[in-house]
């Protein structure tokens, strides 16, 4: 039986791991290379890295004295893929087929695209045609708008698109996306739990796997994401950054609740 996946999501800003809240507040957490070895022991099923740097030149004005900070996303991919033998997805700032090719060459297994997919939906089809659907994860960032509807946002959740989440999810499936990485902007970093209505609505509208993200504050949220939200995979960032052996304990709880996971 296919296991439900537990995914760690890591946000990178200018080469540093950061914490995100509602897509616009960030604390630096440290060097992304430091904790790599831990993921092998933790039995995390996949890693998703999102580069949320806004500018091209990376300079935070602070450097770790012991280990050189990898300030280039491609170097980070190389380092991660030498140490973590699980599926690796990289996203953020991808605009061209060449961007995808470079990331795959360095050791990424999948890439996730967001803004470019909205601005040029044919890009999904083109990329899936070259690299296979399994490689193209479309990330969908959703926020409840003034009318109380679930609306898709682009540019790291800054700009509304006028599209509903379900409408866009169905379209990306049709265009050749292999998976959907669904983020709730409202819940991001809040620890209030997943937006289960959103996850359920999107999961039930498509046949490709949906990865739920945004809002996990306790391990029970993972259980709800699968059982109530009907997600194929559950992802979170902060809970893994701040809690030791969190993946192991989260999976234990999922298993106790009758969810098939890889222990």
């Amino acid at each position, binding site marked *: 039986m296919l296991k439900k*996946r537990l995914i760690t999501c890591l946000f990178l800003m200018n080469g540093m791991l950061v914490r995100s809240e509602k897509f616009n507040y960030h604390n630096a957490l440290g060097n992304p290379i430091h904790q790599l070895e831990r993921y092998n022991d933790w039995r995390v099923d996949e890693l998703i890295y999102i580069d949320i740097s806004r500018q091209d030149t990376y300079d935070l004005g602070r450097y770790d004295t012991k280990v050189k900070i990898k300030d280039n996303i491609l170097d980070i991919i190389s380092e991660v893929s030498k140490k973590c033998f699980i599926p690796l997805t990289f996203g953020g700032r991808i605009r061209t087929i060449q961007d995808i090719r470079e990331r*795959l060459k360095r050791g990424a*297994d999948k890439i996730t695209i967001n803004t470019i997919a909205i601005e040029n939906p044919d890009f999904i089809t083109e990329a899936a045609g070259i*690299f*296979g659907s399994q490689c193209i994860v479309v990330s969908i960032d959703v926020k409840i708008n003034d009318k109380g509807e679930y609306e898709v946002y682009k540019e790291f959740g800054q700009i509304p698109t006028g599209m509903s989440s379900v409408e866009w999810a169905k379209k990306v499936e049709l265009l050749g996306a292999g998976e959907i990485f669904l983020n709730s902007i409202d819940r991001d970093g809040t620890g209030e739990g997943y937006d289960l209505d959103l996850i359920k609505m999107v999961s039930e509208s498509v046949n490709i796997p949906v990865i739920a993200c945004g809002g996990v504050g306790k391990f029970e949220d993972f259980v709800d994401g699968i059982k109530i939200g009907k997600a194929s995979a559950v992802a979170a960032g902060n809970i893994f950054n701040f809690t030791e052996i969190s993946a192991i304990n989260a999976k234990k709880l999922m298993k106790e609740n009758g969810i098939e996971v890889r222990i």
Partner: protein
Amino acid sequence: MPKKIVIVDYNMGNLASVANALDYIGYKAIISNKVDDIKSADYIILPGVGAFADGMKNLIDLGLVDVLKEQVLERKKPFLGLCLGMQLAAEKGYENGLTQGLGFIKGKVKKFDIKNKDLRIPHIGWNEVYFKKNCILFDKLNKSEVFYFVHSYCLFPEEDIVVGTFDYGGEFVAIIQKDNIFGTQFHPEKSQKAGLQILKNFIES
């Protein structure tokens, strides 16, 4: 003399991951699309993610089909096909039309035929593999292990070469062995400890 392990580079998928995994368990592999490297290889690994037709086209364009057939079928060199690499070892593929494969094994590659509509395609994620027969690849592993899969097409062999299976609305082929020819539908290079052990077992076979 160190063993020469060649990962065949035919522009299909993530070759670096396979090289990194081998490196981690202590073996240096060469990523190459040169006929001479394949000729002098002790072990040949054909990885790959993507479509059957594209994969075959690339092997043909690079002029690698004959040398692979010669080294694997005549010289009997240990061959490991991973995911698409295993599928290409079949006679025929039905992804984007009918395509002739390498023909190392009798059988076809076809899309999943699953009645249960709750099961999503592609089959993505970690699934249990049941080891059905003795095979050197299972050395030091349990009777079943969990591996990472990502595919929409499956191998349907027409000879008795299936040594491991997985369940996804039916029983499908996870691992094959026919003499020196090995193949896995899953990605050992992405399956942590159990996957690394499979690669180690192949190189030490």
